[in-house]
């Protein structure tokens, strides 16, 4: 038994997912992903045939966890190293507080 309708994706669904993922798709890609993701999800529906009542989910295959390290202040990267890859950097504003500036982004609010 399928728990829900066959998930062959509509254009609108693909566009909604793209918006959630911050991906601007080209028109051809919407069609392509609708078909390909539909194929993959149909294939994945095999899982719905398995009864997993009471089976706990696994997030990590290995249960052991590493040792904690002491919570000590350690040297971090210099500001120039951090900003070395920045597409745009604002050196002037608040330079003293931030140790050399900010990442600059386009206007957020219109």
């Amino acid at each position, binding site marked *: 038994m399928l728990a829900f309708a066959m998930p062959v994706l509509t254009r609108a669904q693909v566009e909604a997912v793209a918006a959630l993922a911050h991906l601007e798709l080209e028109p051809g890609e919407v069609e392509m992903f609708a078909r390909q993701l539909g194929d993959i999800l149909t294939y994945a529906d095999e899982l719905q045939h398995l009864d997993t009542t009471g089976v706990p989910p696994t997030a990590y*295959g290995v249960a052991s966890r590493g040792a904690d390290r002491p919570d000590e202040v350690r040297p971090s990267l210099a500001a120039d190293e951090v900003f070395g890859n920045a*597409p745009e950097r604002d050196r002037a504003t608040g330079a003293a507080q931030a140790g050399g500036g900010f990442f600059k*982004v386009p206007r957020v609010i219109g």
Partner: protein
Amino acid sequence: MPPEPRRPEAASSKCPASLVSTLSDIRDAIRSGERSAVDVCRESLDRIAAADGALHAFNTVMTGEALARAAEIDRDRDRFRDAPLAGVPVALKDNICTKGVRTAASSKILEKFVPPYDATVVSRLTRAGAVIIGKTNCDEFAMGSSTENSAFGASSNPWALDRIPGGSSGGSAVAVAAGLTPLALGSDTGGSIRQPAAMCGVLGLKTTYGRVSRYGLLAFGSSLDQIGPLTRRARDAAIALETIAGLDAADSTTATEPVADYQSALSGDVRGLRIGVPWSLVEDGVDAGIVAAFKAALDTFKARGATLVDIELPHAKYAIPVYYLVATAEASSNLARYDGVRYGLRDPQGELGAMYSRTREKGFGAEVKRRIMLGTYVLSAGYYDAYYVKAQQVRTLILRDYDRAFERADVVAMPTSPTPPFKLGERTSDPLQMYLADIFTVSANLAGLPAVSIPCGFTTSSPRLPIGFQLTGRRFDEATLLRMADAYERDTEWWMQAPPTASR
């Protein structure tokens, strides 16, 4: 027949038929003063210059850095006299961060990204005396099984240039197979070390989850990713693993289990070891030549005193859908960081939201977008329980299958890939077909288990293409896997074989 050695006088007595030197040969020659690190480094760079136009194993060759480092090792011989990797040229998959050297993960979005720090594995290799030669091609962000999803173009299989080398660590497998470097590191999220190793005829080891630090590895599926070595033989993988494994304060998922003395485990003795074989899985839809080579490998172990036991992995057939739901969910979250703000590509048009979307549209290739979309979908409201939680529950069932198998067997044996390397372009338009190539490899990642692919023969048809088989072990039991691989190498010559391109 293996090709004739080009320089028989330089070949090791241990591998007279091999054209390509092993890591331990090279390391020993440098330690003893027989060769200089600069000489070895130049040879590696020369081979890359001669062969890489056809192979495209490398995205970046670090000529200047490598020669400077090799000269440093030659100058300071005392310091490196006992270094486990003294002067050994190493190739790194392009998703492993190298300070000051572009790390792009074969993505346009990181085409100009220069990390301000080294991955933990890089600092450990360097401390051990290694010479980093360059960054190898891979599928973009390690997403793929053929190395065709690279923004910098596909790599070629050195055994047949019109074929895929496997993926996603294709460039690393090509580098070792073609004798460009004796050691390469790859990353394995669903088979990305083992499958290209099998397809290029080298050994590839995916370690237990938590055995090797992921600090500085560009994240794809954080519960699945592991870094591991590709080498010509088990001893070299043992040396590499001793160097890179172990607890790391920078990666809280690294394990506290002590790192074994893997080289001491290479005793050749496999008597009494029980090899579990899931026959129903192995014989379903697998290339006949691969099944034949696999059975012959099992016979080799039997002749050495190991025993075969039949096992069942009833949920293994669900491993592909589970993997592609879990891995894409994790990827969609991990790749959210590529937004044009702090590093990488930016399309500066429009306001902030438009900048994000356009940057990601321009910067990511089709497979990466497809996986981000799939992962976003399975995590979205209304589908989370049906897909993501369901997949995690079936992951539990797969894990229990292995726990049960290891009650009766010490290792589980399977082919690595159901098919030999296919032609470039053959499956690029059908992602689902491409995903099915991972049927034997994804379970080890889902269960966090170590697994090794070992060369075990060639296809009998033309062209002659490598075949590998896989041994999966108990958690943190890499020693048994390497012991078995080493024992197998003592009885076979597959590991010595070098492709025709290596002699050019």
